[in-house]
């Protein structure tokens, strides 16, 4: 296919604004999928995505329309996956920016529109769901046009659900989006924008060919990593895998590499031909740094190897996932994992539990900190218990939060942000009654329950997005929890000095309720360094006897004690204290609650 007849595009939209439905209509209309094969939202291949209504992984599908080859590169629609959106956008020349006619522009829409603009993409604005009774297409179109500096007349108005206006969308892609402009005869170069792993065929790379042509059976090389392999098969999705023998400049498709080691091929790398190599790699992606960390521990310690394998597998098509082994005296062997955000964490956990059948314990999430110990080097810590007791200075990640909300909730949003150490940045009216607010906030203040709070205080009307803007100094302290005088590593927290006392006390109180009484007094303390800031005591049992035991009930009493002993063996030992695993869980969950 000559490059002039190729169009590569993405659909970007806020969650639930109809991206997947529009993709389905496009597949139907272009006969990529027959009515019989059509099931809703074909592109979302993972069960999890279907259930949550979110698309996690980008995929590319080729369709034909009026003699043109259109490659639709799917993008995720959640705040945590901005990174993946930007990856997909680099493989495109255009983007459909879809907005719900009833809900209008959302924070996510703004964020993704800016991303598309930064990537020099041609934006085709689309107002969707015009069939809804509460739809206000004109208002939505005006807002959208304003956002991208276009005219409202240029905004397409469609209903992906009924199919109304979808043909116009396809025509607009051909008419407005530029053709790819690679060099057909130059040494071949392709950007790996995503990858997946197949049990039988190894690593499958999703690529956008920029220059030249790749052929089946050709020896290839990943330029940054130096990995060499043979292209076992080349092809595209339509929407199922179709072998094509070759992929040329401008085209989007897959390369089956046969590589069994998932770490050998990184998303963002450039593929070239071994025989006639390119000298310069493509710009690639900047490394994303995980900012939210949590410990993942198998409930059954025998599952540790399975957890390790599963993480390795997930890491293949989730470059943002970070993990390293971690040992906790309370929870055993596990991994400290880094995530882009809370949803990312939640999805990784669910995939581990569902796809790999693992039962996991997840500790309360924390952010990355940069610390400078006295006379020491600056370094990053990912676990509160790794924070040195004495520090010269600590820095924590800050975000710029972008919140769009009806004007009557501005007060509620400001109040929440003030509680969370936020600094007001900017306020503007998007329309007569919708306001766009920006704030700078410590990331630590949003990783726990910020999103839920925001939603509940604005009755679900607020939309939220954020960007990490760097590290800033903070008055942060490490709070340790001691049970029976022994620090419990899994329960250490890094807190702002002003809230340390209150949070420490809440934790200690909760632990007192959760730790069963022992044969001795068990002090539970929260401490900053050697200074105890809160203390409770689990009082020793005064009595624990079987009232009577005669000839008739010896067997029963014996079994009772044997059961008790078995129960004790399942407890976690902190020094002399037996702590049920549930107690740790309850407390770890608590740190997600705030009044």
């Amino acid at each position, binding site marked *: 296919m000559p490059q002039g007849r190729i169009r590569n595009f993405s659909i970007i939209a806020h969650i639930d604004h109809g991206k997947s439905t529009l993709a389905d209509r496009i597949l139907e209309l272009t006969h990529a999928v027959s009515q019989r094969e059509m099931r809703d939202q074909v592109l979302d291949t993972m069960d999890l995505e279907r259930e949550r209504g979110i698309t996690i992984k980008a995929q590319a599908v080729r369709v034909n329309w009026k003699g043109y080859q259109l490659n639709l590169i799917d993008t995720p629609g959640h705040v945590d996956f901005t990174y993946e959106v930007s990856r997909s956008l680099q493989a495109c020349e255009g983007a459909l920016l879809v907005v719900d006619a009833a809900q209008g522009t959302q924070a996510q829409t703004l964020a993704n529109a800016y991303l598309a603009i930064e990537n020099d993409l041609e934006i085709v604005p689309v107002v969707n769901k015009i069939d809804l009774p509460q739809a206000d297409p004109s208002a939505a179109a005006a807002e959208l046009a304003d956002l991208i500096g276009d005219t409202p007349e240029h905004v397409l108005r469609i209903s992906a659900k009924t199919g109304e206006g979808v043909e116009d969308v396809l025509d607009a892609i051909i008419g407005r989006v530029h053709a790819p402009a690679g060099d057909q005869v130059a040494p071949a170069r392709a950007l790996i924008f995503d990858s997946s792993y197949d049990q039988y065929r190894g690593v499958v790379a999703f690529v956008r060919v920029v220059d030249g042509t790749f052929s089946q059976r050709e020896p290839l090389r990943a330029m940054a990593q130096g990995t060499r392999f043979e292209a076992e098969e080349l092809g595209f999705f339509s929407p199922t895998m179709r072998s094509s023998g070759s992929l040329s400049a401008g085209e989007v498709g897959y390369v089956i590499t046969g590589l069994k080691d998932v770490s050998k091929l990184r998303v963002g790398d450039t593929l070239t031909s071994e025989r006639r190599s390119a000298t310069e790699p493509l710009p690639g992606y900047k490394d994303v740094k995980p900012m939210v960390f949590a410990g993942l521990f198998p409930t059954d310690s025998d599952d540790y190897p399975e957890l390790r394998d599963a993480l390795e597998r997930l890491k293949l098509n989730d470059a943002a996932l970070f993990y390293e082994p971690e040992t906790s005296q309370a929870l055993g062997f596990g991994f400290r994992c880094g995530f882009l955000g809370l949803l990312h964490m939640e999805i990784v956990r669910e995939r581990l539990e569902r796809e790999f059948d693992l039962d996991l314990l997840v500790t309360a999430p924390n952010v990355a900190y940069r610390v400078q110990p006295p006379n020491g080097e600056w370094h990053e810590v990912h676990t509160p218990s790794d924070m040195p007791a004495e520090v010269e200075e600590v820095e924590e990640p800050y975000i710029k939060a972008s919140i769009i909300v009806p004007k009557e909730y501005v007060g509620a949003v400001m109040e929440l942000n003030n509680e969370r150490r936020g600094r007001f940045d900017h306020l503007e009216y998007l329309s007569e009654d919708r306001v766009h607010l920006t704030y700078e906030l410590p990331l630590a203040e949003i990783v726990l329950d910020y999103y839920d709070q925001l939603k509940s205080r604005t009755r679900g009307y607020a939309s939220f997005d954020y960007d990490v803007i760097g590290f800033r100094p903070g008055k942060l302290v490490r709070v340790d929890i001691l049970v029976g005088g022994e620090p419990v590593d899994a329960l250490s927290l890094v807190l702002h000095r002003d809230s340390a006392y209150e949070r420490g006390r809440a934790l200690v109180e909760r632990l007192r309720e959760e730790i069963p009484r022992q*044969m001795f007094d068990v002090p539970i303390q929260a401490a900053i360094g050697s200074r105890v800031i809160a203390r409770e005591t689990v009082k020793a049992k*005064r*009595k624990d*006897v079987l*009232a009577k035991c005669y*000839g008739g009930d010896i067997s029963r009493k014996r079994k009772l*004690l*044997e059961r*008790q002993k078995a129960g004790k063996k399942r407890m976690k030992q902190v020094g*002399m204290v037996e702590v049920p695993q549930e107690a740790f869980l309850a407390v770890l969950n608590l740190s997600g609650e705030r009044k």
Partner: protein
Amino acid sequence: MSGARHLYVHLPFCAHRCGYCDFVTLVGRSEQHGGYVDALLAELRLERELLATEVETVFVGGGTPTFTEPHALARLLSSLPDAEEKTVEANPETVTPGLAALLQEQGVNRVSLGAQSFRPHLLATLERVAQPDTVRRAFYHLRDAGFDNISLDLIYGIPGQTASDLDADLDAALALGPEHLSCYELEAKPGTRFTHAHGAELALQADAMEMYFEVVVERLTGAGYRWYETANFCRAPSLPHGPDLRSQHNLAYWRGRDYLGVGIGAVSTIDGTRWTNTPRLAPYIAALGSGERPPREHEPLPDATRARERLMLGLRLDEPLELVGSSDAVDADALARMERLGLVRVRRSSSVGAHIALTPRGRLLGGGVTAELLA
């Protein structure tokens, strides 16, 4: 094996079933008492060879043995083997001068009187028929008949029982000067009528009543009683070679001795096997009527299990437990931990092997400590 030296005889009949009771009991049925005693004696004849020629203790328990129709009771008692200690359980309202005389005539030398409480409102909660004075009168009828070894049962931790109620009960019991006292914390056993009616209330009072066990131990040991078993106290002998007033029969259980039990629901442990008779009257009588053994459930007791039981039972006593034979049953790490916590004392000696005993505080926590120690 030369045979069991301890015999338990179960008489299940009661005038009324108390709400907290989970023993095998039958209400009324006086017309069946005679037939049941026939069956008991038949079972005893069938199993006579399991008993040693010299039986040390006989314990007649219930139910309310003294509620049994007097002729049937007399016939039973007269047919039981002779023993150094022969105990019968009695409920206060059944103890008349006549009954006391009957027991005395039939060679009974120890009576365990189910007093439970001396507070009218607590007796009512327990659904006991007796009044405080009934208990006292019963006690003196027994004394008058010549009994010099009387045990009183007390229950504490009754819903609504205050600390001063407990004091008053202990005062009343001590005033009678019994040779022996058994003090049980009320157990709200799942499925009983009592738990249904009072379970929630008891749970609420649990914290307030936590000290009661300690109070009982302090009061009774303060009054000169020996706390020889978790729930049992006896008068210390006034002379160095005075009588040992511990319940010899129950001591046999706690020392892991073999015993034969006859009657419905009765349990026997002999030669590494434990069996339990059917709790149902009709099949019991029917089987023995035709010369058969009653339906039973058997439980093998391998050495390891017996060792665990010896540990569990032995630690209830105030005498050191020799670890020989039980040492595999003990978790050595836990033993060291319990010793460090001052809950267990270990006496190590190369000649006779280690002995362990619970400290006074260890005995208050005996159940938990034992669970820890089990390997």
